């Protein structure tokens, strides 16, 4: 099966029936097929049997902790998981991302926002077999193979770590990358708490790319959670 961004089978694990109902309509109108589950257990069953391309998971389930659902799915599958969380649940979000979720959307959300996130996640899945060597965001281009960064025609000189960060964000193309993920991959597991390394490096990258954080062109901050590269 070769799923594409235009039509995919999406498993929706959410205990609130009204939310399931409108999501089913919204997803259907975007050309997706929807499987529904009203509880964590049911969701896990459907995930095994239904062979979905992507899972939308509500973190507040009645029967089990959303994070536990993420962990169980991750134990046998790497299919993309988008979690729905309430606002102010920063700790929840981070825990879910650490457990293996790929991105989150804060409730209440506009369906447009949700569909945009789904597109990014589904594209990544498609891409995972053939990772492009160059990522393009507006005038910014990141050549992963040749470790070359340009904005327009201008080549940007980044240090090794700065490039690693930008490359990591680029490989995730539009997807959220958590602080922990960047710190672990770029600095190593011993430095997961050294947030200021990351902050300073991002500051340098932004300066070099001439990217104003107050109205970002390339790198977007998700306060308290992580960063994403615009796509």
């Amino acid at each position, binding site marked *: 099966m070769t799923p594409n961004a235009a039509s995919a089978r999406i498993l929706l694990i959410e205990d609130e029936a009204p939310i399931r109902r409108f999501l089913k309509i919204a997803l259907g109108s975007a050309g997706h097929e929807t499987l529904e589950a009203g509880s964590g257990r049911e969701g896990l069953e459907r995930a095994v049997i239904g062979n979905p391309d992507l899972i939308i998971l509500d973190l507040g389930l009645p029967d089990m902790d959303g994070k536990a659902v993420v962990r169980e799915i991750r134990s046998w599958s790497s299919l993309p998981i988008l979690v729905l969380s309430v*606002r*102010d649940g*920063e700790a929840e979000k981070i825990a879910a991302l650490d457990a293996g979720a790929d991105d989150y959307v804060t409730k*209440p959300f506009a369906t447009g926002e949700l569909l945009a996130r789904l597109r990014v996640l589904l594209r990544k899945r498609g891409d995972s077999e053939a990772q492009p060597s160059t990522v393009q965001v507006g005038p910014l281009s990141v050549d992963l193979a040749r470790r070359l960064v340009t904005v327009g025609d201008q080549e940007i000189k980044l*240090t090794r*770590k700065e490039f690693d960060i930008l490359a990591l964000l680029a490989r995730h193309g539009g997807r959220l990358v958590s602080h922990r993920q960047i710190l672990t991959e770029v*600095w190593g597991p011993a430095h997961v708490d*050294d*947030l*200021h*390394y990351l*902050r*300073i*490096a991002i*500051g340098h990258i932004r300066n070099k790319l001439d990217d*104003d*954080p*107050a*109205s*970002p062109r390339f790198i*977007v*901050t*998700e*306060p*308290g959670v992580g960063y994403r590269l615009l796509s």
Partner: protein
Amino acid sequence: MTPAEDDRPAPEAFLQAARAESEPPQKRGKLKIFLGAAPGVGKTYAMLEEAHLRRRAGVDVVAALVETHGRMETAAQLVGLALLPRRRVPYRGQVLTELDIDALIERRPQLALIDELAHSNPPGSRHPKRWQDVMEVLDSGIDVLTTLNIQHIESLNDAVTRISGARVQETVPDAVVAEADAIELIDLPPDELIDRLKEGKIYRPAQAGQALENFFTRDKLTALREMALRTTAGQVDAEILSLMQAKATRGPLPSGERLMVCINEAPVAKTLVRSGKRMAERAKIPWLAVTVVTPTHEALGAEAQQQMQDAMRLAETLGAETVTLRAESDVAGELLRFARSRNVSRLLIGRPRWQKTPWRRLTAFTREAVSDRLLDGATDFEVTVVTPNVRNERRKAVARPRIDTQARGYVAAVVVTAIATLLGLPVESIDLLPSSALTVFYLLGVMLVGAHYGLGPSLFASLLAFLCYNFFFIDPILTLTVAKPSEVVALSVFLLGALFTGNLASRLKAQIESMRATQTRIETLYTFARKIASATKFDDVLWAAAAHGAKALNARTLILTPDAAGALQQVQGHPSIEEHLDARAAGAAQWAFEKAEAAGTGTGTLPGSDWLFAPLATAGKPFGVFGVAFADPQRAADPETRRLLLAVEDQVAVAIERNRLAEELSNARVAAESDQLRAALLNSVSHDLRTPLVTVIGAMSSLADPDTDLPRDDRQELVETALDEARRLDRYVQNLLDMTRLGHGALKPKRGAVDIREIIGRVRSDLARTLMRHSLHVEVPRDLPMLQVDPVLIGQALINLLENAAKYAPAGTAITVRAGLDGKGNAEIRVIDEGPGIPVADREKVFDLFHRAARGDGAPAGTGMGLAIVRGLVAAHGGKVRADAGPGGQGAALVMTLPLAPPEDTDEESEQ
């Protein structure tokens, strides 16, 4: 006010005088005093606030005299109140403006504002003092709001003088304060007050420096504040008490009368106190227990002092006000003077009983003189004399001074006399001195013994010296007989001299010892008091009490308080809580708590226990017990230790009580505020939250109706309206959640170094829709340091500020977010709009819950929570938020002051 109350005789002479001038033709006005600990706490401001409230409620309010002292916020509050022109009084070439009392009474408002109750009128005014003016205004049936600083209350004048070092000339009698229908304490922590002073909000800068040095020190302000808290608490107590009494019995009405119990060191003291309590209770009048300390006081025996202390403490426990006076010699005179100054009408004194020993009889005789002179002088008092019942006053066993010291004294007497004799023999044999001069040797010896070992050994030494002198130096030598009659006289004089010297020396020793003990006690207490005073939280106070109490008393300590079920539980202990408190100790603790008297070792109750428990009480029922187990068990019986223990306990009790009062006061305020909030919240929920739902349901139901065939554009408009309203509802709910969390203190910022531009970027994208009709400008210098904040919470604060700006500024105008430094090591984030701006008077209030600058139906919709949440969020970061005018006085600028992150000491580039 009941009619009966109007009939009662006026309690105070001055009140009578004030009322006589204008016989009240109608109901008396009500007096409310805004009481503060120091200038600048905001009394006038609070008074004006209340005035506005009442005015809005339809009360006819006149600002008869309000002093703004050039404070802007206060002056702004005057706007909208009817002002009474002041009377101009020429005085020493100046023109003063004073309260125009005639104009006020003629104008006859329902409520008059008269600032500064303690003010003295210039000579030639109708009344010398403003409080007398106020009395007249009240008598004419006008309610009055007034302000007063604690140092102006007559009875506190002395205490304040001690604290502040400056005597306040303008005072208000206590009765005026006691008669007030309401007192509102305007409280401001000393640090904030000092800040206000430094910011020039109280005095002009030139005066401020001097004021800071002289008066506005943290210590002084804290002491004054405590005094104000106590005064207010006392007033509340009195109100509750009189309410309860009024309900229970229709007894005599409370008047300004007082009963004074005169306590001395006689064993009758405790009986006196109990009788006093009964009398005061029957007459329903307040009572005082008074003792006079004279210079000879410290020379009294420890036992007698203990008696007196016990009595005073008992009085305090029974609810008396206890006062210790000082006098050189005229004890009776001092007592009477004090009694008159405090409006005492009844005296209770004890008739001393004749003591057994001649010595006692002598001291009793001098006391007799005091009570006699009291009776002679107290012609204007009702005097009750209590005769002691000896059996009831059986003294508790108090350990005698250690026997071995006594025995050593007698041995010393023998040795010293022997040495004097041995020295005398050779001197006499070579005829260096006449034998009569040898008595000097003996007298010196007697004095030494007296100074070191006290009265008994010195008397013994005198006798020995007399015998030895007679035996060795008086003819016939080596007999006790005397040959010459002249020598009989010489010997007698010698004996008398020796006795006198010994007695004098022993008295000296006693005095020095007592002084030394006093000094040690005072030092220990001082240290203890200082340590315990620095504890602010209840647990800290308990811990400090247990730890420092243990140190001061060289003992293990325990503090027990009753739990919810009323059973005593150990709450603190030093070095630790006792794992196994034996039954006797537990019993003693229970007894001490229930009977409000000491129990355990060294007392008459359960003396077998290792522990000594004493009740912790200031006035009224004990709220816990303080227990000690001395390292040296003998110490429990030592009166000096007991006295120290009592003093330590007092300190603990006062500290705990102070803490509790402050807490109760703030709880009461919180309760009142939360009541207001609840009402406002209900209003907000029912109105503001339902409005969006009306639109959503309306729009959706018309879309859902299969019979209506709407044009495409109309459908689209309905959907968008519903969506907008749903989003608004979401923001309200978010605000409610934030507010609840702030209210519960559940909001704990996860602070880290954050670039404000990142926050702005995020907020900008979140608010894209809200800010659609305005242009947003961001001005952040590139080199602005990082902020030490929680990005999510400050993001929320910024969202609220921007939403607020978007709500009030007209469409098409610019909204600017400008960040910079404030010059004091903080960052300032300004949100500037080009809307109508915020009136000066409202700039503080916009941050209050449910306050909206423009009210009425035309007001933009909102929950009135947004800015209150901003204030809460910013405060959680140790920052401040304020409202200013925009640049050039146009529009509004809301300014958040936030802490900067410490500069990074490690840079990852150099490290890696």
